[in-house]
């Protein structure tokens, strides 16, 4: 009996020491790739995502939420959002700025987050930011009423069609106010002009396309099999997209049309919430090649 117990303890000690040694080797040899172009492993992603969700849930407990139904409050929030938030998070039909597409984790589509988060949680994230994500803390940048005004606007965001967002922002900008930027926005979003001389490599490279999908923030709106973290239900899920007959509900699903849709969705359908992300011809062709593996 005593012998058995001793060997069990020895084995346990050996395993713990082995695991620690392996951890130290992985850490100091620099095996873990920190490149933003390499998504985390699935278990790491799950761990971080779950930790983030639970932490926000816990820390937002007990926050008193004021009345957010005043339209003037949401209007103030829209004003702030369209100046401070849209660069990273985009808006209905408007792409984030190119630099934001290169972030890992990629900034979330808030029309989706808002439906999953309480107002207290949104306020907490806005005020405190989130470590290692690129989300800044606004506590020392915005006043308390302004923080809540952004939350009030966010509550409206999922119910705004792309054209409604654009017309509301343009209405704001046309009011004379020296503190605001006077440039009206267009629904075409940020124009990130790609080199027109780069011809698509035909046929596309599906493996490269898989990485390009992460770099164009596709995961913030679509569920895509095989891509870590692609669970957002903003637009349609892309399971079996290779055999789907129509793109966007009206375009025949051919490789040419797919590449064109990826590159200029709003030319093909001016009212779509899918933004123009400045996808280059080569990247679109590679993304299409990956999508066509999803049968």
């Amino acid at each position, binding site marked *: 009996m005593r012998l058995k117990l001793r060997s069990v303890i020895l084995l346990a000690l050996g395993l713990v020491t082995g695991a620690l040694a392996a951890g130290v080797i992985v850490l100091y040899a620099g095996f873990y790739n920190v490149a933003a172009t390499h998504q985390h492993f699935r278990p790491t992603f799950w761990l971080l995502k779950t930790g983030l969700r639970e932490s926000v849930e816990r820390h937002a407990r007990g926050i008193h939420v004021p009345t957010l139904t005043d339209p003037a409050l949401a209007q103030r929030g829209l004003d702030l959002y369209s100046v401070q938030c849209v660069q990273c998070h985009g808006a*209905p039909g408007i792409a984030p700025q190119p630099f934001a597409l290169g972030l890992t984790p990629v900034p979330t589509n808030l029309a989706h987050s808002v*439906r999953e988060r309480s107002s207290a949680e949104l306020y907490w994230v806005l005020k405190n930011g989130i470590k290692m994500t690129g989300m800044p803390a606004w506590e020392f940048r915005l006043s308390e009423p302004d923080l809540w005004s952004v939350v009030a606007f966010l509550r409206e965001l999922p119910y*705004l069609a792309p054209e409604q967002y654009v017309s509301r922002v343009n209405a704001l900008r046309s009011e004379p106010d020296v503190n605001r930027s006077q440039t009206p926005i267009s629904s075409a979003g940020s124009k990130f002009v790609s080199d027109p001389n780069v011809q698509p490599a035909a046929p596309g490279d599906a493996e490269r396309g898989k990485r390009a999908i992460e770099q164009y923030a596709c995961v913030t709106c679509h569920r895509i099999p095989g891509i870590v973290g692609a669970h957002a*239900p903003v*637009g349609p*899920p892309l399971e079996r997209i290779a055999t*789907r007959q*129509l793109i966007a*509900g009206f375009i025949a699903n051919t490789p040419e049309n797919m590449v064109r849709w990826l590159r200029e969705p709003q030319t093909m359908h001016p009212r779509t919430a899918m933004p123009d992300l400045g996808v280059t011809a080569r990247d679109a062709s590679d993304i299409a090649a990956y999508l066509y593996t999803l049968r």
Partner: protein
Amino acid sequence: MMVSDVRLLFQCVAITLALALTGCGKSAPQPPGIAGDPERGKLLLRQYGCGACHTIPGVAAAKGNVGPPLEAIAARVYLAGVLPNTPANMTRWIRAPQEIDPRTAMPNLQVSESHAQDMVAYLYRLR
């Protein structure tokens, strides 16, 4: 002392499990704005042939892949890529898709208001 401690532990585990199970068994409350009958809606989705174009969980033979799959459609932010997803908008879309988006391939199937509301009640269960 030992025995009663162990018994207490088991009781706690049993109560927690029972609570968790009853919690899971409860059907989610209907979101506001839903007036229709979900069971009837499920039947109607089959009767109008929605499954010829859409994959719809729980609806027999609805495995179409012409338009988008309707898995977790209740959580989707936009309908048809253009319309914010609310029960009222979904009812409008089902009844007159081409009035909302003239380009859509989704046909007007002459769905009545009450039939559309029943369908919406079922589709809003898909989270």
